[in-house]
């Protein structure tokens, strides 16, 4: 592959990994599961909703009648309630199993996307000189020992150093963005004496002799 292709591909992959970790794996997995269940299992969810609604109705009716006076009716409602409860647990269990499967799949997919290609590239092209800097851009000791990390020729930059820089810049930009535009909600600090009033501790005045 051309040097430029490698650099562009690796940069893209690194940025992709960082964006994914920014959004968080959990959010991505739930989005995937949401889309999947909308396509395949929406019927089951509607059924679950209906069952739960019915159960609430039965419960309301059951609580409204006196168990002692209408024992037979109360017990019959009880039986219906229990039957619905087993149906609901069974349905929820199958849906949870499905979610587990889908989550496992998306987890695996994410891992593969974020780990394999970039590490593969790094391994393959680690000794290749990819970017050549103009003469004298940096002091001699930086060019000879730092930028050409895996002992490449002086003045060249390899994949690992380049990606390190890309990574660092990305996170610096993210922090700057957060600082400038986002306000973090902090919990209001509580004065220790406010808590002390809730805690019953006997405080005795110091006896000075």
């Amino acid at each position, binding site marked *: 592959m051309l040097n430029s292709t490698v650099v562009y591909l690796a940069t893209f992959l690194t940025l992709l990994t960082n964006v994914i970790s920014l959004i968080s794996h959990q959010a991505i997995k739930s989005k995937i599961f949401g889309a999947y269940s909308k396509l395949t299992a929406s019927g089951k969810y509607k059924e679950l909703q209906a069952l739960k609604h019915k159960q609430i109705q039965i419960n309301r009716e059951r609580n409204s009648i006196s*168990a*002692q*006076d*209408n*024992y*037979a009716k109360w*017990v*019959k409602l*009880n*039986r219906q309630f*229990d039957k619905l409860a087993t149906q609901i647990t069974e349905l929820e269990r199958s849906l949870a199993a499905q979610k587990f499967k889908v989550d496992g799949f998306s987890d695996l997919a994410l891992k593969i996307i974020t780990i394999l290609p970039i590490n593969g590239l790094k391994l393959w092209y680690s000794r290749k000189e990819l970017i050549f800097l103009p003469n004298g851009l940096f002091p001699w000791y930086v060019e000879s020992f730092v930028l050409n990390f895996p002992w490449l020729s002086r003045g060249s930059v390899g994949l690992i150093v380049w990606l390190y820089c890309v990574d660092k810049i990305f996170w610096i930009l993210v922090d700057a963005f957060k600082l400038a535009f986002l306000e973090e909600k902090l919990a209001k600090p509580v004065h220790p004496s406010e808590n002390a009033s809730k805690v019953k501790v006997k405080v005795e005045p110091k006896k000075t002799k």
Partner: protein
Amino acid sequence: MADEFEVEPSLTEIVTHESLKWIFVGGKGGVGKTTSSSSIAIQLALHNPKKNYLLISTDPAHNLSDAFDQKFGKEARVVDGLSNLSCMEIDPSSSLEEFAANSGQDPNDPLSGVMTDITSSIPGIDEAFSFMEVLKHIKNQKAEDATTVKYDTIVFDTAPTGHTLRFLQLPSTLEKLLGKFNEISGKLGPLMSMMGGDQKAEMFNKLAEVKAQVQEVNKQFQDPELTTFVCVCISEFLSLYETERLIQDLMKYNMDVNSIIVNQLLFADDDECKRCQSRWKMQRKYLDQMDELYEDYHLVKMPLLGNEIRGVENLKKFSKFLIDPYDPKKHKDVVFSIEER
């Protein structure tokens, strides 16, 4: 059954059943389980003089001896006055000692003492031992040996704590237990050999044998032609609700339930006692609800008599009403005819 819409309020069907081998009698404490199970056993014995019956109590409180006014033990003993009925009271703690002694461990050895303590605190261990008696009897039934006594039907007077269900669940529990045991012994290998020695392989074989027997018993317990459960209760809310829950659980285990005995009924329509009338009114309220709720069940209504029902003669008088339903007008005299023991 000639009339399909009316389920008769008596236990005639059970008493005259040809193939029933196991009858469980259970219900929450204090409702008259022992009296009911003894009554059922007596009626069975009286109706079928050629057959042999056994009444087993799985309650550690020795209540059969009190009910029949005769000492019973862990070996079956014939009831005085009824030659085809025997009773057995299984005492789990002594069974445990016997088991430990049989497996060749010195009871004074502290390590085996620990094992015994652990085993005796396993929940349901009482039931496990009564279960082993059951297995023993099944083996005897199949044996061609003429000296071992064979019983046509065994009636169980279950313990009041609701461990009955754990007892019934024993086959699947045992399977899981055996699986876990295999796992643990695999991990603790050398340690186990220190404690058990060469007996380990022997123990495994025995456990596998027990497992097979247990599965056989399970099959029998789920066959309605072989096993049935009789629920005993009184006509009060808590007892009835407990019975309802018991029936739901039994249905989950696929055990046949078709009879409910309601004890301690007052039948005080013609009584002058105001308290009895008020209580009877409350009982009747629930009885009507029960008739509606358990239409397909034999709902047997038993009276509250003037005295405790102890001894074979009194039990005979009481057990008649399981077959011939109690009519307050016809059978009024029985209430005060129970002799004191």
